[in-house]
């Protein structure tokens, strides 16, 4: 990999020489303001607004929701914690949150385990037909869950997993493995083969190489794969809706919708409070890992 970079730069530098005579650019404050801060703030505002709206709705008294002439909808007077309180103490929310976490974490761990081996085999063992198998994995995304769940339900039932978190733990990897495998394949490719070669000469087995050499170097890949996987599990709806039936087993997105939509009346405050509280664990996780995730990856490639 590193060789290529140098080659590329070489060609770039020669190619570019004539075209750009003295086009040096200043990193001046105003320039940065216009080129970085301004567009960044605009995008950030757009990205954050619906979330802000959810926060606002979750603490707004119901009467202010549809009275836009009297109350400025961008703000809230007399905020109420009624919705959040109702969510946390009068519903089984903590239980749902726990279910969601449990299912997500176990399904993610399972997927990563399977993906690490699969990716390693595809990239480094290069067995006969690896290319084909690699392509086959992505067939996983060919049919959307919105239809797949009916035939899948028959299988879940045949294995006796109905209304059990195990159903989701086993089904979610089908959405997670292909992505994680692909991601990890990319990382494994960036790890110099020389390292592995030396170990092989020293008589290490493939498993030892994978665990002792490859995995530590692939930590950033593992982190990004698990973050992605966790999020997908966290947000999944159809499987969670159809494979789990008892209230105490439900996951957050499903439970919130069935708990706070009464016929033709939406309990906006509680719905949004649920979305908010349900996202918090992930937000915290992300704020902790984002830096790690980005910078660790840099380290891996520099090797």
């Amino acid at each position, binding site marked *: 990999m590193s060789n*290529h970079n140098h080659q*590329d*730069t070489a060609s770039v*530098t020669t190619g*570019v*020489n004539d075209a*750009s005579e003295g*086009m040096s650019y200043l990193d001046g404050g105003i320039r940065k303001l216009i080129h970085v801060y301004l567009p*960044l703030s605009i*995008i950030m505002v*757009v*990205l954050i607004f*619906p979330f802000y*709206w*959810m926060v606002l*709705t979750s603490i707004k008294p119901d009467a202010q*929701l549809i009275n836009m002439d009297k109350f400025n909808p961008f703000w809230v007077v007399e905020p109420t914690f009624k919705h959040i309180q109702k969510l946390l103490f009068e519903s089984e929310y903590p239980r749902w949150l726990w279910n969601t976490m449990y299912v997500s974490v176990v399904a993610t761990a399972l997927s990563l385990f399977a*993906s690490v*081996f*699969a990716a390693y*085999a595809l990239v480094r*063992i*290069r067995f006969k037909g690896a290319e084909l*198998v690699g392509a086959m*994995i992505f067939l*996983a*995304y*060919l*049919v*959307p869950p*919105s*239809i*797949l769940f*009916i*035939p899948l339900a028959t*299988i879940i039932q045949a294995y006796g997993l109905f209304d059990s978190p195990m159903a989701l733990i086993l*089904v979610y*990897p*089908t959405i997670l493995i292909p992505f994680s495998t692909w991601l990890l394949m*990319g990382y494994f490719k960036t790890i110099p*083969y020389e390292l592995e*070669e030396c170990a*092989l000469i020293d*008589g290490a087995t493939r498993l030892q190489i994978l665990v002792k050499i490859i995995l530590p170097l692939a930590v*950033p890949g593992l982190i*990004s794969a698990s973050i*992605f996987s966790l999020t997908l599990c*966290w947000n999944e709806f*159809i499987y969670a809706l159809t494979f789990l039936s008892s209230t105490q087993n439900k996951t957050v*997105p499903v439970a919130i*919708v069935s708990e706070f939509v009464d016929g033709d009346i939406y309990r906006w405050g509680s719905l949004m409070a649920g*979305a908010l509280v349900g996202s918090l664990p992930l*937000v915290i996780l992300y704020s902790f890992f*984002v*830096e790690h*995730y*980005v*910078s660790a*990856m*840099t380290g891996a490639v520099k090797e």
Partner: protein
Amino acid sequence: MAHNAVGRPQASFQRTERSLMQRLSNDRNWLGAAFMLPAAVILIMFLAYPLGKGVWLSFTDAKIGRDGVFIGLENYEWLSDDKIFWLSVFNTLFYTVIASVIKFLVGLYLALLLNEKLPFKSLIRSIVLIPFVVPTVLSAIAFWWIYDSQFSIISWSLKNMGLITENIDFLGSPDNARLSLIFANIWRGVPFIAITLLAGLQTVSPSLYEAATLDGATRWQNFRFVTFPLLTPIIAVVMTFSVLFTFTDFQLVWAMTRGGPVNATHLMATLGYQRAILAGNLGEGAAISTAMIPFLLFAIMVSWFGLQRRKWQQGGSDE
């Protein structure tokens, strides 16, 4: 890389004593199969079989709670001159293409911005990820409220600024509804693309830019000839997944419009769901989702071979 390199270590092992275990662990095919096993078991058990069954259903007249009999291509024949079906095909392509392109452009732009020296770096990055984290159903419900025909905050603001006099009918007219949904999809999808591309950007060594800048490259040239080529592999991966997930999107549309107004926002996934689950015609719903397969295959092929070609172009045929 792998091909050439593996030869040597194997040769060195040949001199050592060979137990069965060792032989197996050195046989690439056996080892490869063993390593693939966990993934294969899960995927075959929970995916290959239902997928096959789904395709089979599309050739039957199965209803919910009743096994169908084989009817050949009848479901497909009915679909072939079904205006609503073709509308859903159009909608799906429109939705996927527009949303993916914009997601890519905005995501890349955002990644470049985030790659600058910024204060509160990690705070900004976590904020950027928020849309990706909120459960889709619930953010869809929030959007639905934001797009409400009477109580839209957007209409309200524009009205108060004196820019419009009537509320905008976000989800009521076909074009508005399509664009509103695409916007919500972009909102949800950009963060992941941006953060992943940002990770890719950080792998580009600053010395490359320095060298290029010394040689007089402009910002654009820096991007075009240094950044972009190095990012290509990660772009291909991210965009393939983005396209796949956009193409099969369901929750967002279902929560906001159910395919309305007048089927203008029905995607193949939502139409399939409506016909299979709500109307009970499993066979027909299965046919609609089976019809998605060629499109998805095409998307996968494009990026897969795009990826391969790129490697080759860079002189990476030894990989």
